[in-house]
């Protein structure tokens, strides 16, 4: 009888403790979605991030290709951090109480611009109505950034544009020379990179408009003081110190992630 009670007590205590053990060891997720670039190297990204993060704790990387799926995942109970474009962060924080913690850095800059390019000597930004534009961003993002770049263009003109999604910014820029599209939207960095790797092709293009400077992707969380979130943030900051970590960040066009300043926090306000 005594032994039976001991067993019962042990089972009861185990049952009571299980949820707390589960909670402590539950996986924290990095939810990734970036509508600014047509990132589709998800297998490689998941491999790279998981290889780095899984050695440091119960962390996993979860990339999304679809905005709705991404937001549904957050709604169904977010545990961890989001790694999203700063543009998307602005709209996301209306739905979720997210606190920005880190932002991306590429070639020593924490911000980037998008530009609208056309064929030098042929295209002007006033020809935008009915045009086809190559872009590596999502149609929603591209239309928003186009309106920002061309404030003088009528709503009808920008609404009549067809966006042709291509895998990368370089593809978008080269599509103009092939006569496939009228314009391209790309980052200013890529435009300058083309000047280095193929000056002749670069000379064919002309920058017609540019967007405002925007912060590179941000890491944010609704539970910034959670000890596991704080650990995750620390691991992100140290990521470039490991060769594999740096290469994985490079695959999302970042060199490193650094802590956000008050000034940068203000840039993220709508």
């Amino acid at each position: 009888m005594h032994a039976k009670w001991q067993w019962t007590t042990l089972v009861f205590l185990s049952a009571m403790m299980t949820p707390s053990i589960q909670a402590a060891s539950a996986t924290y997720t990095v939810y990734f979605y970036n509508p600014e670039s047509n990132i589709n190297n998800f297998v490689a990204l998941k491999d790279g991030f998981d290889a780095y993060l899984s050695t440091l704790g119960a962390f996993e990387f979860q990339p999304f290709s679809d905005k709705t799926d991404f937001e549904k995942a957050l709604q169904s109970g977010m545990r961890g951090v989001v790694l999203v474009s700063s543009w998307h962060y602005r709209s996301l924080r209306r739905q979720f109480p997210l606190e920005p913690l880190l932002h991306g850095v590429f070639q020593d800059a924490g911000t980037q611009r998008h530009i609208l390019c056309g064929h030098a000597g042929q295209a002007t930004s006033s020809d935008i109505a009915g045009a086809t534009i190559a872009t590596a961003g999502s149609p929603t993002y591209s239309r928003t950034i186009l309106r920002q770049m061309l404030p003088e263009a009528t709503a009808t003109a920008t609404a009549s544009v067809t966006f042709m999604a291509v895998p990368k910014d370089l593809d978008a820029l080269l599509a103009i020379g092939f006569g496939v599209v009228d314009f391209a939207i790309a980052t200013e960095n890529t435009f300058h990179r083309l000047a280095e790797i193929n000056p002749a092709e670069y000379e064919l293009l002309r920058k017609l408009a540019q967007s405002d400077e925007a912060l590179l992707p941000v890491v944010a969380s609704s539970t910034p003081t959670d000890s596991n979130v704080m650990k995750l943030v620390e691991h992100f900051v140290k990521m470039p110190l490991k060769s594999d970590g740096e290469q994985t960040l490079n695959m999302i066009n970042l060199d490193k992630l650094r802590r956000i300043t008050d000034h940068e926090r203000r840039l993220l306000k709508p």
Partner: protein
Amino acid sequence: MMISVRNVLMYRPSPPQWRCRSLPIVALIVWYCCVGVTGYSAASELDILILNTDASISRYRSARLGFEELMNGRCLEFDIRQGRYDHGELAATVQRIEPRVVYCIGSAAYHVAESLSVHGDILVSSALRPEKIAREAHVYGVYNEPPILSQLVMIRDIFPAIRRIGVLNSRRHNRKWVQSAKAAGRNSELTITSLAVNHPDDVVTRLQRDISELDALWFIPDPVVMDSEDAILAIFGICDAYKVPVFAYDPVYAEVGATLVIAVDSPTVGRQAAALARNVMKHKPPRVRFQHPVGTRIILNRKNVTNYNLVVNKHALGSINEIIR
């Protein structure tokens, strides 16, 4: 990306015992219902017919999805795989709906379209030997291989230290291609060297003779060079022994040791075809009737990068779609 199933009617002929002559009519009725649901006008819905050589093949399926992305699902599709379709039914459907554009995915689909009395324009992608098809005046389309310029730009971006690139080729099939590549290479400060051969037996000797002068080998489709599977494996084997990276154009070569594959991105091909279709339907002639594919899918073999001691531009890693570790 989510594609709404109700926007798309996929017509696959049933096995013979189930097939009935009224199936296309039933399909059209169902399709009209879908049109009602999605809010498109019936007239515009009837404008496009897709003939797919084999919808179970990934690159054909991806091209179709890319096409529908820009056409908002306004298409009727026939999967004609392996001759399992009824030509009479298809011909009757074409006569009934009189599509303004027939989009053929793959060579077999194009040959079927040619055999039908199609009054509208024909659009072709993912076809073998598209150069021949491109000569037809009423045909629009997208070529099948990544353009020389895109490949060179990506190579130069990813491997900044590589400057001397050899191309095994036969003059009979690729003389003009090599001339274009040499000219395009100069714009990216790359020296393209022709390793020309007349006979498959000469390939190994030619490669062994010149390989020490090369930083990389650019593997292009050439029937003399690619005479047999053994010949292809021999080329990759020699390059591996000399630690010379091979750049190829099709993902299949990633499995035999290519260090970099720059392939065509099939969904982009479909989107290009859709943009062409829209122009044709608006009677706005496209600037280029037969276009180069503008989207690239890049695979990098990191194992080779390490083994061959290659320098990779870390800021180009964002362009890589797949990494082989």
